[in-house]
C-alpha cells in the first residue's frame, strides 16, 4: 500500500499505512490520533471486562497499553456475552523473509485472543500485494508467504481453529464474489482519497483494497461459516491500518454485514529510538527472530537508545528519562511481571539503577523469547504449513 502523493502536513504528525512521522521529530501523540481517526480508547473498565469474560488475566499488551484503541470492541463483547461468537482476522504482507519482534506483536496478541475467547482465526498473507507494491515475482512472493507462515505458526496458533491463506491461492469463489460486491460500493475517487493513488499507479494497486476487505465478512469463507451465521469479525492491527479498515466498515452495512471491529496497537519502536525507523535494510534497527543470543546482546548493548544520563554522577542525580529510553519500552512489551517492571521503572527513573542493568534484564527476556520462538519454528514442517493452509472445515473452532 505505497503512496505517492499524500498531503504533506508538516505541522501535524502523519500516520498512514505507508508513513508514520511524529510532529517535528518528537513522539507520536496517540490521543490526538484517536481524536483525528475517531476511534475509542481502550480504557481500564474494558480491560477488566475482558478479564472477567475470559476468566484469565488480561494479556500483557492490554495491561501496558500497547493495544490501546478500538472500534466497536464493546459490541463484540456484548455479543460474546449473549452467546454469539465472533472470529478473528489478521494478516501479514510477506515482503521479507526476516521477521523482527515488531512483526510478532500483533500475532502474539491475536494468539492470546484466540485462546482467551476460544474463537477461530483467519490469517491473510497478501502475497499479491507485495508482488505489486514491492515488485516481487509471483513465485518469490508466494515463497515468502510460505516462509512467513512458518514464523506465524510458531507463535502458537491452534491448527484446529486457524485458517491461513495466501491471496494467490485462495482468491476466487465466494471470496471473489465479496470482493466484487465491496468494489461496487467504493468509487475511484474514494480510494484515491484513502490510499492516495495517482494516474500513474497501475490498476493492480487500485483494485487491491477489496482483497484486504473481503476477509472481514464470514461469507468469504464458506468452508468455515455457513450463511445463516452472520458472525462478527474482530481485527487486531496496528493503528496505522485504521484508515484502511474505515473503507470496509463503510461498505459493510450496505452489504448487510456487521461492521468489522478493530482493536489497535501503538507502534513498535526501533532500537535507535522513537524517531528512528525500523528498516529492513538496517539489521541493527530491530531484533530479528533469527538473531542469536550473541546478536541480541550486541544489538541491545550497542544500539538500544538509552534514556540514561551521560555520566554516572548525573544519572544518580537526575535519573533516567523513561519517555525515550528504549530498553524500558521494550521491557514494557515483553516483561510479563508487572511488579518487576514497576520496580525497574522506579529505580531507573530515580537514578539508582544504571542503564547497563536494565539492558541486561532486557537481553535475558528477549533471548528467552527468541529462543522459544526458534524452537517452535524448528518444529514447523512444510506439511504443517499445508495443513494450516488447507481449505478445510474447522469443526471445533468455537469449543
Amino acid at each position, binding site marked *: 500500500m505505497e503512496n505517492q502523493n499524500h498531503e504533506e502536513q508538516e505541522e501535524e504528525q502523519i500516520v498512514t499505512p505507508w508513513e508514520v512521522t511524529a510532529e517535528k521529530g518528537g513522539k507520536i501523540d496517540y490521543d490526538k490520533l484517536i481524536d483525528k481517526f475517531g476511534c475509542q480508547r481502550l480504557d481500564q473498565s474494558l480491560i477488566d471486562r475482558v478479564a472477567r469474560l475470559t476468566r484469565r488475566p488480561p494479556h500483557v499488551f492490554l495491561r501496558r497499553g500497547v493495544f490501546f484503541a478500538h472500534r466497536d470492541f464493546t459490541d463484540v463483547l456484548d455479543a460474546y456475552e449473549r452467546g454469539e461468537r465472533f472470529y478473528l482476522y489478521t494478516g501479514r504482507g510477506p515482503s521479507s523473509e526476516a521477521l523482527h519482534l515488531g512483526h510478532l506483536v500483533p500475532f502474539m496478541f491475536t494468539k492470546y485472543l484466540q485462546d482467551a475467547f476460544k474463537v477461530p482465526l483467519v490469517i491473510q498473507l497478501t502475497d499479491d500485494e507485495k508482488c505489486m507494491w514491492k515488485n516481487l515475482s509471483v513465485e518469490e512472493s508466494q515463497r515468502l508467504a510460505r516462509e512467513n507462515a512458518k514464523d506465524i505458526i510458531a507463535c502458537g496458533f491452534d491448527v484446529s481453529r486457524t485458517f491461513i491463506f495466501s491471496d494467490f491461492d485462495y482468491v476466487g469463489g465466494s471470496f471473489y464474489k465479496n470482493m466484487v460486491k465491496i468494489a461496487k460500493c467504493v468509487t475511484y475517487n474514494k480510494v484515491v482519497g484513502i490510499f492516495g493513488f495517482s494516474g500513474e499507479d497501475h490498476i493492480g494497486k487500485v483494485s487491491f483494497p477489496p482483497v484486504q476487505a473481503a476477509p472481514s465478512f464470514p461469507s468469504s469463507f464458506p468452508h468455515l461459516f455457513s450463511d445463516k451465521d452472520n458472525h462478527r469479525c474482530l481485527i487486531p492491527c496496528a493503528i496505522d491500518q485504521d484508515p484502511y479498515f474505515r473503507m470496509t466498515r463503510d461498505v459493510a452495512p450496505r452489504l448487510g454485514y456487521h461492521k468489522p471491529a478493530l482493536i489497535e496497537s501503538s507502534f513498535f519502536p526501533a532500537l535507535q529510538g522513537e524517531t528512528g525507523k525500523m528498516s529492513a535494510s538496517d539489521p541493527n534497527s530491530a531484533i530479528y527472530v533469527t538473531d542469536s543470543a550473541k546478536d541480541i546482546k550486541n544489538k541491545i548493548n550497542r544500539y538500544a537508545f538509552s534514556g540514561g544520563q551521560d555520566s554516572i554522577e548525573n544519572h544518580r542525580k537526575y535519573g533516567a528519562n523513561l519517555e525515550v529510553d528504549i530498553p524500558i519500552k521494550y521491557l514494557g512489551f515483553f516483561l510479563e511481571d508487572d511488579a518487576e517492571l514497576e520496580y525497574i521503572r522506579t529505580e531507573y527513573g530515580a537514578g539508582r539503577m544504571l542503564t547497563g542493568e536494565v539492558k541486561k534484564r532486557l537481553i535475558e527476556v528477549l533471548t528467552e523469547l527468541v529462543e522459544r520462538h526458534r524452537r517452535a519454528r*524448528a518444529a514447523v514442517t512444510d506439511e504443517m504449513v499445508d495443513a494450516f493452509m488447507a481449505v478445510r472445515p474447522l469443526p471445533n473452532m468455537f469449543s
Partner: protein
Amino acid sequence: MGHTKEQLLTRLQELQIDFPRYEHPVVLTVEAQAKYVGHLKGALSKNLFLKDKKQRFYIVSALAETKVDLKVLSQRLGLGKGGLRMAPEEALAEILQVPLGCVTPFALVNESARHVSLLLDQGIKSQECCFFHPLSNDMSITVNARDLDKFLTSIGKNPAYVDLEANPPVGKDQPPDLATLVPSDAKIVAEPPEKQVSSQGPERNHLSVNNHPKVITVAKAVKPSNASTKEKSPDAVNLSISYADPDKFVQEILEKTTSIVLSEIKEENIERNGEQLATIVSNNISKQLGLELKNIATIFKNTAYTEGFKAGIHHQPKRM
C-alpha cells in the same frame, strides 16, 4: 586492482628470494600442473580457499599428498563440525583476486585478502622447495619454506604451520587447537544467496564446481539463506518427531516439573514454609510452567493434526 604476476615476482626479487620459474599452459588442477612440472625438483602443493559460516576466509596450502579433512579442520578451528566449506567462485575473484585454479598463499599480497587466514602444511617445511602459482596459472614457481616465510612476514602475515593430518580431540576440556588462526576482524562480504558447492573428482587448486542455484518452486519451499535461518530440514523433522511422540513429550513435561520441584524443596524452604511448602511449590509450578507447557502442548497438537491431515489426503478410498 589486484597485484599482477609481474608485480609479485618483482617483489619476491626485491626480498632477495630465489625462485626458479616455469611457464606452462594454463592449468586448473594439480594433476594438470604435475604434467608440466612434476618431474622437476619441488613438491606439488594443493591450495584450498575456504570459508566459514561467519563469512571468514581461509587458505589451506598443503603438499599434494597430505590428507586434508575439512570436518576435522573445522573442529580444530572451533567452528563446530560442519563449519568449513569451499568458498564460492565470486569470493575468489573478489577477495583473492586470482583466477579459477590459482589459489596460492601469494594471493595474500592483495589488500582485499587482508583478513584471510593462512594455514600452511608443516610438511612444506621438510621439503626442499614447493610449487605455487604466482597469481596466475600459466606459471609455477618453487620456493622453500624459509623464503615463503620471508615473503609472508614482509606483507605483515605470521606464517602458521600446522600438522594438517592431526586429529586431536576437541571438547570441553580440550579447546580447539587452531582457534587462534580464525580471523578476528573479518571483513563482512555481502553474500549473494548461497549456492551449493561440493568437492568432486580430482583434487583441484581452486574451489570446485558450483551447482546451479536452486530452482525455487512453490510446492517444495527450499530456502536460499539470506536471512540466516539456522535450522535445516533434518532438524525440523527430528523435532517434529519428538513432538509427535507421547513418550518424549511426557518426558519433557516431567523433566521441567521435577526440576522446579527439586529446586524448591530445599532445607531452608522446608524450614521457612513448613506445611505451606506444598502449596507454594505447586503455585510456582503453575506460574512458571503454565505458559511453557501450553506452548509445547500446542505444538504437540499441531503436529498430530498435521500427521492426520497428511494421512487423510493420501488415503485411498475403499475399493468396492
